[in-house]
């Protein structure tokens, strides 16, 4: 008889498992789909509003046409201390256009119907904190955002936002760095939903000619603690690097190299073409 009596907490746990299983986040679905095809993810980062929001929208469509699997919508911030010169300059340009979380939400909503890839918002913490955490999570979800990445908010400080994000099924993605020890890896891994963001190097964002050899070892180590996808970002600028890393990681994230293309192009038309070309090369390298 006692075998049949499950404790209430145990019931809740089982219900949660079933519930979570049915309600797979759009990001998780994407990685599942890629895995079934034996592909890795190509994730592109754009600073929203650089040079203007209309162009950002067109760039997103171009990226989608050229094989992108997930898009990071970068929210410009006055003090982007994890970013190198490329994204710093992009943020400054965007801020001079008065880009705010509200205008980015509006853009995301307008895109919702026409694009299928998951959208992840990447913002420093202060704009979110100032917006109000509860409202931010609600508005993000309502406007078609599937996940959030906050470079200056380690899981240790994220209790409040995670509470709301869990309820709203908004994925929280945390970083693991080459300097993270086992305890920190475990924290990041257990709090992450969607994927885990591995920072390829000790440093800020920006294209690098060569990347540290430590990456492979670290990815294998992280994977020994989790079944969640692990993607690599910071420094990746070309198809060769993307291909090498995709051999052992679940995805690659490219930002500065795309932004450089936009600004070296000279005209908007050429920028869209050049970004499309780079995207298709990167997608091909990892698919």
């Amino acid at each position, binding site marked *: 008889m006692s075998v049949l009596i499950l404790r209430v907490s145990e019931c809740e746990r089982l219900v949660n498992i079933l519930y979570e299983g049915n309600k797979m986040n759009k990001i998780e679905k994407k990685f599942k789909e890629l895995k079934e095809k034996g592909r890795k993810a190509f994730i592109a980062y754009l600073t929203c509003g650089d040079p203007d929001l209309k162009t950002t929208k067109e760039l997103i469509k171009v990226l989608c046409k050229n094989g992108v699997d997930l898009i990071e919508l970068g929210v410009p911030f006055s003090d982007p201390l*994890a970013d190198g010169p490329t994204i710093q300059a992009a943020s400054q340009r965007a801020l001079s256009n008065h880009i705010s979380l509200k205008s980015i939400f509006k853009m995301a909503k307008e895109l919702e119907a026409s694009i299928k890839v998951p959208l992840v918002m990447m913002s420093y*913490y202060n704009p979110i904190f*100032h917006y109000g955490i509860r409202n931010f999570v609600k508005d993000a979800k309502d406007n078609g955002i599937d996940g959030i990445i906050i470079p*200056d908010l380690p899981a*240790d400080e994220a209790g409040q936002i995670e509470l709301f994000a869990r309820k709203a099924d908004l994925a929280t993605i945390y970083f693991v760095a080459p300097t*993270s020890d086992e305890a920190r890896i475990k924290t990041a891994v257990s709090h992450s939903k969607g994927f885990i963001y591995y920072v390829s190097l*000790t440093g800020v964002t920006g294209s690098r000619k060569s990347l540290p050899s430590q990456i492979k070892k670290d990815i294998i180590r992280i994977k020994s603690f989790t079944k969640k996808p692990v993607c690599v970002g910071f420094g990746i600028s070309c198809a060769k690097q993307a291909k090498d890393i995709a051999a052992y990681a679940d995805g690659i994230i490219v930002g500065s190299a795309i932004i450089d293309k936009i600004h070296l192009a000279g005209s908007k038309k050429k920028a869209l073409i050049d970004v499309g070309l780079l995207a298709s090369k990167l997608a091909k390298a990892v698919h």
Partner: protein
Amino acid sequence: MRPNKAGYFGIFGGKFVPETLMNALSELEKAYCKLKTNKDFHSELNFYLNYYVGRPTPLYKAKRLSAEINGPVIYLKREDLAHTGAHKINNTIGQVLLAIKMGKTRIIAETGAGQHGVATATVCALFNLKCHIYMGDEDIKRQKLNVSRMKLLGAEIIPVHSGSKTLKDATNEAIRDWVTNVKNTYYVLGSVVGPHPYPMMVRDFQTIIGNETKKQIMELEGKLPDYLVACVGGGSNSLGLFYPFEKTKVKFIGIEAAGYGIKSYKHAASLITGEVGILHGSKSYLLQDKNGQVLNAHSIAPGLDYPGVGPEHSYYKKTKRAEYDAVTDKEALEGFKLLARTEGILPALEPSHALYYLKKKAGRFKKKDIIVMCLSGRGDKDVEAVSEALGIK
């Protein structure tokens, strides 16, 4: 005990930094907590503070100043007489000794007025360490004397061209350097700001100001003062003075920079006008716009020209343990002249704000009240800027 284990002073503080730095902060905290109770470390630190910095600094009764403003009894804690000319060296000696114990070979720092940069460069020369100082372009222009001093001491100055080209941006750039070179580099933060454990650690190293004051005033007056007054940028000289008096009835007054005036939006009064936000690794009052973008601060005093403030000051404000007021650029210049002419001391522009406050609010004090004001630095570095502002050729 403040802060708590997670580095919070009430709701303020914390560690809001990229993952790459989280381990470095834990290491730093561990190393510091171990040394904090180590007798050998303290005797080494005290040796340098006494024989190299020249401590204790005098507590000087400024009679002519009191008479001139028809005010209370005023004592000046003469941090301007510390080696390198400001209180900043109390902290840099402590942190660089810690860096050496941690086996770090390269030192970086940010600087606004250049006083923290000079204090860091000085200690690096003393201990033969490589030293890189980040300084905003704007500050390099207005603090030429300190730039030359740092160079002569063997430090390399890295000009920062981003943003407002002042202290905030120099701090961003120093953090970026630290993220990149975290393995061999120690970041000497110059104020009670940044992620935990910095606000606690810098406060602890600066409490020598308050501890000495307590002893000195007891010897001179046989009782504690009624008020402590100091300028607040990030807030290290004020917190260093206030903290040892926390459990007494002594009242604390912090003076921020009102720049062109509080209503001009060109000021650095984060405690008075700011909203809670996150900058440079901690939660505190912050000058920001409606979208949570950090505003550029303004003050004639480069050392106060910062949109944030130390989290423990935010805690003091919230709990009303301290009161805060602000003084404009113009008024600070008056404060500068006042001390020069009554006491023969050229103060730095930063404490000139606190000096003018004493004049402006002389009426609120009783004649017999005893006030200790922290004269956090000397004015040599500002002579050029002040002469220009006052039209002295």
